[in-house]
């Protein structure tokens, strides 16, 4: 059952080949067997079985939707009422949210069965899942390698087929980079397409939730459930949600693909470059036109990101003060002692580093030079994309400069770690949608192809990506250990 896609499982459920209870038990069994992957922070066995039973009743009544009874996982960044929401941090190791995130409610509403909460980098700050309070997650393709981050647990769980699909969040590449490292499909929608309400904030102007699945079709199914305007999120956009399955089969002959020149310069691993080129050849074969484009301000993405994201996070994380919820140090002497020790003891090194960078960037005397300047460059990057989209339909390139690196390999060098997001960050700065799909292997590790679309062009992205999956089988491959 675990080798099937969400779409296939839904058909199996409809045809009574198996029940949701059986499906849920099967996946829960796999989660137990794969404990060493460390993909989950919390497994919600009891609740899952109860939901699965209800799903079976709905299926029996003929009221099933495409996600009814399908076992999925939620990244532990989404608040879930009655189930711990840790955000990968000691700070929230004891936190149970009084409410559920909009994304969680919508997916529950669609009838999906949540098997648990997935591991992640602490407060989504990291590119390897190594900053999690709950320890590193292993890449199912090579258990000595990282699964990427911050949605590392989600990517590993989907790749090892511990869930049929999962949610992720992407602030600078946190869906696409782990999807690429783990050989799965990951979509970061347009900023504002999916509600951020109840999704614990890292960098509010960049954070966006999206699906992580085996196939593009599954991503379309999950996005359908997740997307939409939410009056509780002022930055969500009040625009109708199209039927994402509708356009999947459209012919892409004549599609104009832009290839970002800058993405193929220094820093891109040869094996990755070759794999991406081979994927582009597939598109040529399907009748797409490929032309080189230049986005001159792209090279500034990383410095801009590492001003804006920490600046926002420095304020977003101020609420973790030991007063109302979360970790509070033992026997504080006074208020200051409580603040200093609660935060000092419960935040990890990467989170502290980013709070410090952000606090510095916003401080009097530095604000104009860093924050304001970064915002200006951010606009220039957006304009670069805008110009490009007047010329091409979609933009393609690599997701990451290398394949999954070894656990512990980059932890001592934050800059080196930050550079692993060099191809994904600009998309968040511009607020564009982008998808990462499996495009082959290099040294036996998966390589992803990134497709970037125009604002709210998720349908087109899904169509273009799906057409590739129709002529390739990279997305169907399973790591041997988890077959």
């Amino acid at each position, binding site marked *: 059952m675990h080798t099937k896609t969400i779409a296939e499982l839904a058909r199996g459920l409809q045809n009574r080949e198996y029940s949701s209870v059986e499906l849920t038990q099967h996946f829960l069994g796999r989660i137990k067997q794969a404990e060493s992957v460390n993909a989950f922070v919390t497994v919600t066995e009891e609740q899952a079985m109860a939901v699965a039973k209800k799903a079976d009743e709905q299926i029996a009544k003929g009221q099933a939707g495409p996600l009814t009874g399908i076992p999925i996982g939620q990244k532990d960044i989404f608040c879930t009422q009655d189930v711990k929401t840790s955000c990968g941090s000691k700070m929230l190791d004891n936190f149970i949210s009084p409410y559920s995130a909009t994304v969680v409610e919508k997916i529950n509403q669609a009838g999906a069965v949540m098997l648990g909460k997935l591991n992640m980098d602490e407060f989504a700050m990291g590119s390897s899942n190594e900053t999690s309070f709950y320890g590193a997650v292993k890449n199912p393709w090579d258990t000595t390698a990282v699964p990427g981050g911050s949605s590392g647990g989600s990517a590993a769980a989907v790749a090892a087929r511990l869930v049929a699909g999962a949610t992720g969040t992407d602030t600078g590449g946190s869906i696409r980079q782990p999807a690429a490292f783990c050989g799965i499909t990951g979509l970061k929608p347009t900023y504002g397409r999916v509600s951020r309400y109840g999704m614990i904030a890292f960098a509010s102007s960049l954070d966006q939730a999206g699906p992580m699945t085996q196939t593009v079709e599954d991503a379309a199914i999950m996005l359908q459930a997740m997307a939409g305007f939410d009056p509780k999120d*002022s930055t969500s956009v009040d625009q109708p949600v199209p039927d994402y399955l509708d356009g999947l089969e459209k012919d892409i002959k004549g599609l104009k693909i832009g290839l970002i020149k800058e993405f193929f310069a220094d820093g891109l691993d040869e094996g990755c470059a070759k794999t991406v080129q081979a994927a582009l050849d597939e598109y040529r074969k399907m009748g797409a036109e490929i032309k080189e484009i230049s986005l001159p301000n792209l090279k500034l993405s990383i410095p801009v990101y590492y001003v804006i994201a920490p600046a926002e996070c420095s304020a977003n994380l101020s609420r973790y003060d030991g007063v109302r919820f979360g970790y509070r140090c033992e026997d504080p002497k006074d208020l200051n002692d409580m603040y200093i020790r609660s935060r000092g003891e419960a935040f990890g090194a990467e989170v502290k580093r980013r709070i410090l960078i952000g606090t510095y960037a916003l401080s009097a005397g530095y604000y104009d030079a860093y924050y304001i300047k970064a915002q200006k460059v951010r606009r220039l990057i957006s304009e670069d994309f805008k110009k490009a989209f007047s010329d091409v339909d979609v933009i393609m390139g690599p997701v990451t400069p290398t394949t999954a690196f070894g656990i512990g390999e980059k932890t001592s060098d934050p800059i080196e770690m930050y550079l692993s997001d060099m191809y994904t960050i600009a998309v968040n700065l511009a607020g564009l949608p982008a998808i990462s799909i499996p495009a082959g292997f290099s040294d036996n590790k998966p390589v992803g192809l990134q497709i970037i679309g125009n604002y709210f062009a998720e349908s087109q992205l899904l169509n273009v990506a799906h057409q590739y999956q129709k002529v390739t089988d990279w997305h169907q491959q399973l790591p041997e250990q988890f077959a």
Partner: protein
Amino acid sequence: MEWETVIGLEIHAQLATKSKIFSGASTAYGAPPNTQACAVDLGFPGVLPVLNKQAVRMAVIFGMAIEAEIAPYSVFARKNYFYPDLPKGYQISQFELPIVGNGHLDIQVNGVSKRIGVTRAHLEEDAGKSLHEDFHGLTGIDLNRAGTPLLEIVSEPDMRSAKEAVAYMKKLHELVRYLKICDGNMQEGSFRCDANVSVRPKGQQEFGTRAEIKNINSFKFVEKAINFEVERQIDILENGGQIVQETRLYDADKDETRSMRSKEEANDYRYFPDPDLLPVIVEESLKQEIKAELPELPEAKKQRFKDQYQQDEETASQLTATMEMADYYERVVKNANCEAKLCTSWVTGTLLGALNKAGLEISDSPIEAERLAGLLQRIADNTISGKIAKQVFEEMWQGNAGADEIIEAKGLKQITDTGAIEVIIDKIIADNPAQVEQYLSGKDKVFGFFVGQVMKATQGKANPGEVNKMLKDKLK
């Protein structure tokens, strides 16, 4: 040396919205601690603010009332600092781009009018409260107030005395209540004031170093706090010292200000635009709509009262001090359908006197405007005399009866039947020959005796004019 005081005020007016500025929780005052704070107010992980449109509307109403620039595009920013009753570790406020720009307010002190500039007014959320009692050395946090909408109104440093500062504050207090955007309740903290105070040698152009006095919550304390602070600063300067820029707290019990923190200890608030909120766009159409609905403002109303009802400055000020007062008065005028002068003297004299004595506001008056008008009608049409009317007024104050009912029940109707009065007069003249003699011999004063006798005999119900006329005739 002669010193000049320079004062600017920052006033926090709590906007009278039903729910909070960024959440749906109620803003009602006085609920048990933490029962009116939802996940958004508590700053729980993952929550997001959603702007209350009513708060925006009220800010625009205020801006238009002080003829200020209304920003078509304003931005919420995060003001970062740690405090236990500030749930998110930042306050959502407006910084570089406030919703209300330059405006002004005219005040009167000692009969002289003066224009005070308003630099800006911006929207922000209130914090909660720290409770230091009853927790055995610990601090309790009540977040009911967290997220309550505030309009912070910042004046220019245009005031030159504590009296001017108080006049400005009162004027603003009157205005926000007129506009129904703030209940003005100072005990409950709905209208609070911080004062920036400095002194400089008279004639000097540049400002002296200022101190900011925090959280002064009554008109009386504003005056006292400023006066104390001015003397303190002058004292220091005259003794060769220097003023330190700092934040000071006014202690009403000791009638003094004392240092809270100096400029060096001041927070760097690290303001930046709040990425959770979109910029606030005020469309021209909203401004037009509000303009059309804007009530008559206190200044205009006062002028109209002076013109329309022939009132002097003081009376017009008194009758337009609140919207409720002005409405009451105009309802009396409308229903009494008599000379405005009579209405004015009864409202400002008898009614306000009685209310004052009873410690009541006009809105709590036991006699409604319509009932009072009924009484004045009977004075105007000579049914009763002014003196009898006072008696009727007392009766009305005690119960719900109208003037006519009381006049009828107590038989207080003026005797206008000249025949009846004539009989009484004839009897009095016959009974008092000595007094008649005196009057006829030129002692005019005795006339009053006869009037008194007639009124006594009629229990005051005879029309005094009529009595005078008839007596004069009879005693010729």
